[in-house]
């Protein structure tokens, strides 16, 4: 009897434990996913009502602006929220100052005022499209704040100063509340995410190199990884910029992060060049060189991993660094041995050249990899200084939007403002000014966004959705409300729903749009005004404004938008041309980061699967990266030779032909560039046989020859040969010529 009792007790106890454990797991899971969302929702709502309360107490003209500011700067991590807040504040200040100036210059001169405003909005939108980071938000804001203040002041220019002051005050209150709540209450630090991003980047680069050296990666995978890598590099930079505003030591580590980012980019490019060289040889069934390289690959790929995976954090990378440093001490001896062994197998001249190129690239990759691992390892150190004795100049990653796109978006915003403002002036609909302002705001915001259509569509949907709810809340609930607590209770359910919606990445725009429109239409004030006619008018104007913004995007220069493939392809050629002719310092770094940035834009513009044209552009970018480094090296070597040296002249001619080809693509120019490369190669080889002594010249010539070989093989690559852009542009110019005739 007792034994049965005991066993049933045991069963019960184990069952209890099981239930408790699974409940715990469910709770943990909930806290990790939904809990984070709800914390964010509660923080947003608390900040919004705090701002509204302060605005009520201080008796502002429109307390809703403070509340709306909170919804705008509510972002998941405190670094991002602080960053956006500060740029919002700066943008508002600049916009107010400009609006005062414009209204002061053209009081009661609507035409001139519209023109001046359109010019200012155009400049600001262009600037924002050029930058595409948090700063671009400040630019957009400086543009539309000027509109928001100057347009309603047309008929009352004397009040413009009061408008400006109250706008700045309201925004500042909203920003202070949002910053306080997001940074002090359950903050989610951007710097923690940055650490993860840095680790992820290192892990991916090392894994990519390891897999490619083991030969277990296909070309299609490689393309995809390149796009992903470009996105990661850009994300790292934007994360660093946001963490800069947080408390912590990221600010003093900016230098190290830039160094890591750029060394990772350089190492990957060199590796990729080497990898493509090998792949081309393999395709041609010329297996002698790839086989000779195998032992080098094996040694390096072994030390890259620790216990079968890349170093998990910066401290662990110290081991990798020691291993690679040990390898690079032995490297010259190994390379010499390999060279001797290779020559014993009586290779053809082409194979010899390919081998030289491969060894040269491998050595360079080895050095750059060591640099990258050292940079990564340095992040674990307590001291945030770059080790003494390293005189490397470190530059930041610089974004590069094709200038035509920035120009077009500036033009679009300016003409949207001008057209709509004139229509409003002629229309005599009092609410139309709201529509004009909303249209200008969203023309500006969408031009720096990677998905302008999605942004406008989602916000329109959110706005339209908010209208009936706001109507219900305003005319059936708020008219019974007494006191601030009741106001909170009446508005809370709607705002909670909107804020929760904005935590879902796919529909975030709808949620933010809903909350903005809700706060805008409810317009809580100390003396509430209930006016159904103006409610309907204003809500219609807001939605119409958004639709007009979408219309402007579809009608005015619709092809010129972020991530447009054609413009990216053209910007890539432009970058390559710059490499051949420009004399700026730091050309290499600039080229590297700009091309990566263009790749990133291409990546963000892709919806769904990549089509053939996009992949062509991608391949073009990667090939240009290879050629670019070779050209830079060639230009560098040329300055070391005396200008009258025949080799220097040959190189000069070759680079000129390449520049011609990059500036205007045609098959004739391509053929000329290839011929020039071949001719230069011939001259160099002759020179090399003449200078037998082991002087510095021989080394320079040898290196230049490998560079020329790289350029030659890349030029013959399919990515640069059949260029649909050249066909497009030649067709275009023909048409234009006919038209002119």
């Amino acid at each position: 009897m007792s034994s049965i009792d005991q066993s049933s007790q045991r069963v019960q106890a184990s069952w209890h434990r099981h239930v408790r454990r699974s409940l715990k797991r469910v709770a943990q899971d909930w806290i990790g996913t939904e809990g984070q969302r709800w914390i964010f929702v509660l923080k947003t709502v608390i900040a919004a009502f705090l701002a509204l309360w302060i605005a009520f107490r201080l008796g502002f003209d429109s307390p809703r602006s403070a509340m709306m500011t909170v919804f705008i700067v509510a972002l998941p991590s405190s670094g991002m929220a602080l960053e956006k807040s500060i740029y919002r504040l700066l943008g508002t200040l600049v916009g107010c100052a400009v609006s005062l100036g414009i209204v002061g210059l053209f009081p009661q001169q609507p035409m001139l005022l519209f023109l001046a405003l359109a010019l200012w909005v155009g400049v600001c939108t262009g600037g924002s499209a050029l930058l595409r980071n948090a700063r671009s938000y400040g630019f957009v804001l400086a543009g539309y704040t000027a509109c928001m203040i100057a347009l309603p002041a047309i008929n009352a220019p004397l009040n413009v100063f009061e408008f400006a002051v109250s706008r700045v005050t309201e925004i500042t209150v909203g920003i202070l509340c949002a910053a306080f709540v997001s940074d002090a209450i359950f903050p989610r630090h951007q710097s923690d995410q940055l650490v993860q991003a840095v680790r992820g980047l290192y892990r991916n680069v090392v894994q990519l190199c390891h897999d490619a050296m083991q030969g277990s990666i296909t070309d299609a995978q490689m393309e995809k990884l390149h796009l992903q890598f470009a996105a990661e590099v850009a994300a790292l930079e934007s994360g660093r910029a946001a963490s800069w505003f947080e408390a912590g030591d990221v600010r003093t580590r900016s230098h190290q992060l830039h160094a890591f980012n750029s060394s990772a980019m350089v190492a990957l490019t060199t590796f990729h060049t080497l990898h493509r060289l090998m792949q081309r040889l393999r395709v041609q069934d010329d297996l002698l060189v790839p086989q000779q390289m195998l032992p080098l690959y094996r040694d390096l790929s072994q030390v890259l991993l620790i216990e079968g995976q890349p170093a998990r954090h910066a401290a662990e990378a110290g081991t990798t660094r020691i291993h690679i440093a040990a390898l690079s001490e032995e490297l010259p001896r190994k390379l010499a041995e390999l060279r001797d062994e290779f020559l014993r197998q009586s290779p053809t001249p082409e194979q010899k050249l390919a081998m030289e190129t491969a060894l040269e690239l491998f050595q360079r990759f080895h050095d750059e990899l060591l640099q990258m691992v050292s940079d990564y390892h340095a992040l674990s150190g307590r001291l945030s200084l770059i080790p003494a004795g390293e005189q490397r100049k470190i530059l930041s990653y610089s974004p590069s939007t094709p200038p035509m796109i920035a120009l077009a978006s500036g033009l679009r915003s300016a003409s949207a403002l001008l057209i709509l403002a004139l229509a409003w002036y002629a229309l005599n609909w009092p609410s139309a000014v709201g529509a004009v302002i909303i249209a200008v705001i969203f023309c500006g915001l969408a031009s720096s966004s990677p998905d302008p259509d999605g942004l406008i569509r989602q916000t329109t949907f959110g706005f339209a959705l908010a209208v009936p709810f706001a109507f219900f809340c305003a005319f059936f609930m708020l008219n019974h409300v007494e006191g601030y607590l009741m106001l909170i209770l009446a508005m809370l359910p709607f705002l909670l729903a909107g804020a929760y919606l904005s935590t879902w990445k796919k529909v975030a725009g709808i949620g933010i749009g809903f909350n903005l429109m809700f706060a805008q239409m409810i317009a809580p004030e100390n003396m509430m005004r209930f006016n159904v006619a103006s409610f309907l008018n204003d809500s219609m104007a807001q939605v119409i404004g958004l639709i007009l913004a979408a219309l402007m995007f579809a009608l005015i220069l619709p092809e010129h938008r972020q991530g447009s493939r054609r413009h990216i392809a053209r910007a890539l050629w432009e970058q390559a041309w710059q490499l051949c002719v420009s004399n700026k310092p730091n050309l290499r770094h600039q080229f590297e980061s700009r091309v990566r940035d263009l790749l990133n834009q291409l990546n963000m513009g892709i919806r769904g699967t990549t089509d053939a044209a996009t992949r062509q552009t991608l391949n073009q970018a990667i090939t240009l990266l290879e050629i670019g480094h070779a050209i830079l090296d060639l230009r560098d070597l040329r300055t070391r030779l005396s200008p009258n040296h025949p080799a220097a002249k040959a190189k000069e001619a070759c680079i000129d032909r390449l520049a011609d080809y990059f500036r205007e693509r045609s098959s004739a120019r391509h053929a000329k560039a290839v011929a020039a490369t071949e001719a230069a190669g011939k001259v160099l080889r002759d020179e090399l046989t003449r200078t037998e002594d082991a002087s510095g010249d021989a080394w320079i010539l040898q290196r230049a020859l490998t560079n020329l070989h790289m350029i030659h093989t890349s030029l013959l690559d399919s990515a640069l040969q059949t260029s649909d852009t050249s066909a497009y542009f030649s067709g275009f110019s023909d048409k234009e010529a006919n038209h002119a005739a």
Partner: protein
Amino acid sequence: MPREIAVFGILMPSLLAVFLVSAAIHVGIDWLCGHFGVYRHVWHRSLFRLCLLICIFGAVALLIY
């Protein structure tokens, strides 16, 4: 301390000026804290920084008052 000061004929609360000055001081101290790793020994970095700002603001305002 006067309650309001005139800047180009515009009256501003003098506490605003004090706040701007203390924010500038705060940025400097914040940078130093980051540089010398003070934040590594702090439980709630953001709250610590906020308190620092309030302390500086209070100190400067009281000093002038």
